[in-house]
């Protein structure tokens, strides 16, 4: 499912044009993005919690070149699906690509 699909459904549900729905959606994702990027965490009911975690720096090994690398610390987006969502989707069959 792509953004355009989501926008189409939203536009239909709320009786707005696609452009309006897309704009609204953009604002929502923009707000999410800003909050995540600034390190805030927030939870959306029935979807999950967004936040950030920091991966520690570590050493890695490239077996091809037999080289060790030092990898710097990294901050990544952390998403924890809500319990309901998790349970609902646990047993759904996925169409493998």
């Amino acid at each position, binding site marked *: *499912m*792509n*953004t355009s699909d*989501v926008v189409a*459904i*939203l536009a239909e*549900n*709320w009786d707005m044009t696609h452009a309006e729905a897309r*704009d*609204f*959606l953009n*604002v*929502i*994702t*923009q*707000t999410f*993005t800003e*909050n*995540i*990027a*600034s*390190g*805030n*965490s*927030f*939870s*959306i*009911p*029935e*979807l*999950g919690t*967004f936040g950030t975690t920091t991966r520690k*720096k570590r*050493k*890695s*090994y490239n*077996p*091809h*070149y*037999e*080289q*060790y*690398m*030092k*990898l*710097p610390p*990294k*901050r*990544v*987006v952390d*998403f924890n*699906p809500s319990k309901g*969502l*998790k349970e*609902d*989707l*646990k*047993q*759904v069959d*996925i169409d493998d690509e």
Partner: protein
Amino acid sequence: MSEKVTFGELIESIAEETEHSKQFTHDFLKDFVDIINGGLEEDGKVNIAGFGKFELQRVDEREGYNPQTEEKITIPAHNKVVFKPYKDLRELVNAPYAHMEPQLIEEEEKEEETTSNAEDHSSADHQAVDSQTEKSAIDSSSSIDEDNKQAQKEQKSESDIPESSEEQKLNEDDFIPTAPPTSHQQDSDEDKTSDKNQIETEEDFPFSFEAQQESDEDISEASASESSDDIEDDDNGDIVEFRAAASDTEDDLLEEFIGSEEKEQQDETSEDIEAVEETEPETNEPQEFEDKLDETGSSEEEDDEEKEATKSEEEVLAEEVEKLEETAQDLKQDQQEQSDLEDKNSQYPTPPTSRPSDRSSSFSYVAAAAIVLLLIAGGAWYYSTLSTNDTTLISSSEEPTTSTDAAQEVNTQQQETEDSQESAQNQSQASTQSSATQQSTGNTAPDNQSVEIEEGQTLWSLAEDRYGNPRLWPWIYGNNGSLEDPDLIYAGSSLSVPLPSGPQNTLTSTDSVGVAKGFIATYKWYKSNEQSKAKNHLWAAKLYHDDLQQLADVPIDKTDLSYANKAR
């Protein structure tokens, strides 16, 4: 950071921006979430452009155990929801660490770490090694591309290794921020032509901000030097007045002796005899000298002041001279008094602080001798420190001479002590100015020198004095954490000035680390106060130390860092 934002606040901010009601926003968002859930259920992934991708991932059945009951259980196969952020979001989130890049660990260290971190890498890595060796045996012949890649990689690693091995291999745990060199060149070609021009013109000393710096100095000096010039003029005027007022006092004698001694030091041997001979015929009566001594006694403090005034050009040296005078006073006064008393059979061995009105000429000899000795010693040291760059003060010695027996005797007695002094002084003259300052401060602290700031001085001029290279001024700044504005230092406060530990003003590795730290300190200040100049300081810091990230205790701006990396 890491603040918890409630759903209500989120709705509020979205509603504000879209100018819809909160209720509508809430319902809309809820619908959006429902669509995501529906989409996930439908085909396992929902792609929201500009934000991320929600996806279902299959997790196979696996063994696990309940940590509470410690029972083995089988976790059934299931799906899990995964959110994969878009690149924009990933980069935004990782912004604090974005300047760090993976760093290759070199061969020697690799061996150490394979042994030390054997536990960490453990079986997985070793298996990987084994499989790798087998693989490479199979693959190496077939794949040309891989060979090319390897060759490239080796080139890269070769280019990486000398960088860090040239410089200190300090704390290789941290990450040298290295951007790909090609992109650097492109960048520098494209957007830094002006800077490049600056750099090219200043290849000898690649400080692209020299011009800015000098203009800064000009500004700061212009503000400070106007007053300081006035003060210097005043000082000179004072000196003249002093001389006029106390022209008959011992001070002139002293100056003469200092001058003569300086000549001696210049011409080593022959002229000191002449100087002594010159003073011989012009002998004054002891009584007269006693009168002078009264004057000088009262103006002894003034003498000191005046000396400072004459040496205001070299304020810092004056301080050293004073210290040396004190030590010389302690050491030589005793000797002098003893020898004088023996020679002259002094009748009044009273301490020089008490001044009986009926003191005899012999006591005046002693006191005069002591004072003259002190000042000569001070002058000698002063001369030794000035010998490289100053001849103006010597000219002041060419004044009418009115010498006394006492002074003459002192002078002859001086020869002995001077000889020993001179040998030391000649050594210091032979070496450079920096070693001279080192010698004078070597007693107290080998690395740092405490310097009192005088009016008109700048960090720039201090660095020029100390290192012969004014551009090292951030070293001083970095060594004094109390300083705020690097363009603003206050007269009267004291600075701890680091001295180069290498000979001939060369910087040792620890010195260059200190210099780099200084530049980072100035970078930090300029970053928060004068953004445009900051990157130049970082650039300069990069010249002195490779691993800026390790030196800096604050994250360095990415663009500044990439600019600085061009220094390599």
